[in-house]
C-alpha cells in the first residue's frame, strides 16, 4: 500500500508537527511567549507563597502547594492553547483547503495538534518549573511519579477542551476564537486548583467532581499534605478523561464534517 493511501501515516503526522515547529522556529515572539507566561505565573505565585507561608497555617503545612497548583494548572491551560491555537493558525493562513485535498486525514491532524501541544507545554511549563528551583528552592519534580500522573491527566483534559474549542471555531468561524480563553477559565473556579473542593457550595461540588481536574488537584493536595497517593482519585480522573477526550475528538470530527457540508474549508474566517 502506498504512503498516500494508508489509513494512518506517522509521516503525515510528522509533516504537520514539522509545520508547527517551523512556525515556532521562525518567530521569536512565539518562542518567548512559550516561556514568558508560565515564568510570570511562577514568579508571582512564588511571592504569594512566601507571604502565605508566614501568614497561613494551611499553606505552611505544605510550602509548595500553591506553586505546584499553579504549575499544574498551567499544564492544562497550555495543553488546551497548544491544540486550539495551532489549529487557528491553519484558519488564519487559509490553509485548510490545501491540507484536506492532500492525503492527510482529519484524525491525523488531531494527533499532530496533540503532539505539538505536548511539546509546547513541556517546554513552557518545564521551564517555569526549573525556574522555581533557584528562585524559591522549590522543585515540583520531588513529587516523583504522582507528578507524571497529574501532568498526563491535566494535559489530556486540556487537549479535550482544545479540540472542543477548535471544533466550535471551525463551525462558527474565527469570530468565536475567544472561546480558547473563555472555556478553560470557566472551569478554574470548580477545579479546586488553590483550595479543596469542599470549599464550594454543595451543588457546585457535584459539578466539580465531573471534572478530571478536580480529582487531580485533590490528589495533588493529598500527596503534599498527607503524603498519600490517592488511587481512587487517579482512577476517577482517568475514566472522566477518557470520556472527555472522546467527546472532544467527536465534536472536532463532527465539526469537520459540517465544514465539508457548508463549504467552510474554502471560506474560513470570521
Amino acid at each position: 500500500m502506498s504512503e498516500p493511501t494508508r489509513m494512518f501515516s506517522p509521516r503525515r503526522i510528522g509533516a504537520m508537527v514539522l509545520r508547527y515547529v517551523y512556525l515556532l522556529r521562525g518567530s521569536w515572539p512565539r518562542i518567548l511567549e512559550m516561556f514568558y507566561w508560565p515564568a510570570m505565573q511562577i514568579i508571582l505565585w512564588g511571592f504569594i507563597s512566601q507571604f502565605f507561608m508566614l501568614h497561613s497555617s494551611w499553606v505552611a503545612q505544605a510550602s509548595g502547594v500553591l506553586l505546584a497548583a499553579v504549575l499544574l494548572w498551567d499544564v492544562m491551560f497550555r495543553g488546551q492553547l497548544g491544540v486550539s491555537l495551532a489549529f487557528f493558525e491553519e484558519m488564519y493562513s487559509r490553509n485548510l483547503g490545501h491540507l484536506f485535498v492532500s492525503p492527510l486525514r482529519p484524525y491525523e491532524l488531531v494527533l499532530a495538534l496533540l503532539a505539538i501541544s505536548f511539546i509546547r507545554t513541556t517546554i513552557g511549563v518545564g521551564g517555569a518549573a526549573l525556574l522555581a528551583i533557584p528562585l524559591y528552592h522549590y522543585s515540583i519534580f520531588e513529587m516523583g511519579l504522582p507528578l507524571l500522573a497529574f501532568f498526563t491527566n491535566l494535559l489530556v483534559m486540556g487537549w479535550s477542551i482544545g479540540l472542543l474549542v477548535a471544533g466550535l471555531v471551525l463551525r462558527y468561524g474565527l469570530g468565536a476564537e475567544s472561546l480558547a480563553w473563555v472555556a478553560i477559565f470557566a472551569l478554574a473556579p470548580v477545579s479546586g486548583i488553590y483550595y479543596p473542593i469542599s470549599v464550594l457550595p454543595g451543588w457546585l461540588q457535584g459539578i466539580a467532581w465531573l471534572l478530571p481536574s478536580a480529582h487531580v488537584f485533590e490528589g495533588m493536595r493529598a500527596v503534599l499534605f498527607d503524603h498519600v497517593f490517592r488511587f481512587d482519585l487517579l482512577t476517577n480522573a482517568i475514566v472522566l478523561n477518557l470520556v472527555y477526550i472522546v467527546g472532544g475528538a467527536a465534536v472536532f470530527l463532527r465539526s469537520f464534517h459540517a465544514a465539508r457540508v457548508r463549504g467552510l474549508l474554502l471560506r474560513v474566517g470570521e
Partner: protein
Amino acid sequence: MKHPAIQVRNLTKRYGDVVAVDSVSFEVAAGTISALLGGNGAGKTTTIAMLLGLLLPTSGEIRVLGEDMLHHRYRVLGRMNLSSPYVDLPYRLTVWENLSVYANLYGLRHVRKRLQQLSQELDLEAFLHRPYGTLSAGQKTRVALAKALLNEPEVLLLDEPTASLDPDTADRIRSYLLDYQKSSGATVLLASHNMPEVERLCSDVIMMRTGAIVDRGSPRALIARYGRATLEEVFLAIARNNGQEEPRRRVAP
C-alpha cells in the same frame, strides 16, 4: 472520447434555498486539458471543491480515476492536486518549508530532489528561503503551482491559475502547464475567466451559468456554433443570455 478521468453525474449543491450547482453531469477525458467557464457565481469553484471532497454535494455522483469520491476519496487524493486563489499557504513559513511539509504529506520519496527540480522549473530559487507571506502575487502563484505539482498529479484541478499575474508570468505558467500535461499525460481541469488562456490551453470547454451547464465543446466548435469571432464573445453571449443556442441546455457527456 478517451477513457474519462473525471465523471460527474447529476451533481447538485444547495445551501438552503440557494442552488449553487444544479444537477450537472460531465466527463473529462484522461490526458486532456478542459475548462470550466462561467461568470462569477456560475458554480465553477463549487464544482471543483466537490470534485476534491472539500465540499460535500447535496446529491449526485463523482468518480475520479475510477474511484467514488464520496466514499473513497483517500484512494485517489494522493494522485490529485489543486491550486486555487481561495486557499493559501502559511505566510510565516518559507517557501522551502511549505513545500517540504506538503512533500511529506504526499509521501514523496525524494523530497529534496523534487523541491530542487520544481524550484528550477518554476523559477523559485531566488525566494526559496523567504517567508511565503513576503512574496508578490506572481511569486505566490508560482509557489502554489509548485505545491500543486509536488506529487506529479494525474488529475490537476486549477482554479484561476493565472489570476493576478502579469502577462509575461502568466504566459510562462501556461507554457509550463502545457509542457507538464504533455510530458506527464495528466488530466487538467481548470476554471478561468481568461478566454485567451482557455483557447490556448484547452481542448474542451464546459460553459456554466447560474450553477448549470449551458453548453460544451472545443473552443473552435463553440466559436463556430455561436457565430462569434472569439471565445470571449461566446462567453459574453452566454453570460448575457443572448446566445444563438438555447440557454441552460444541459449537455449529456
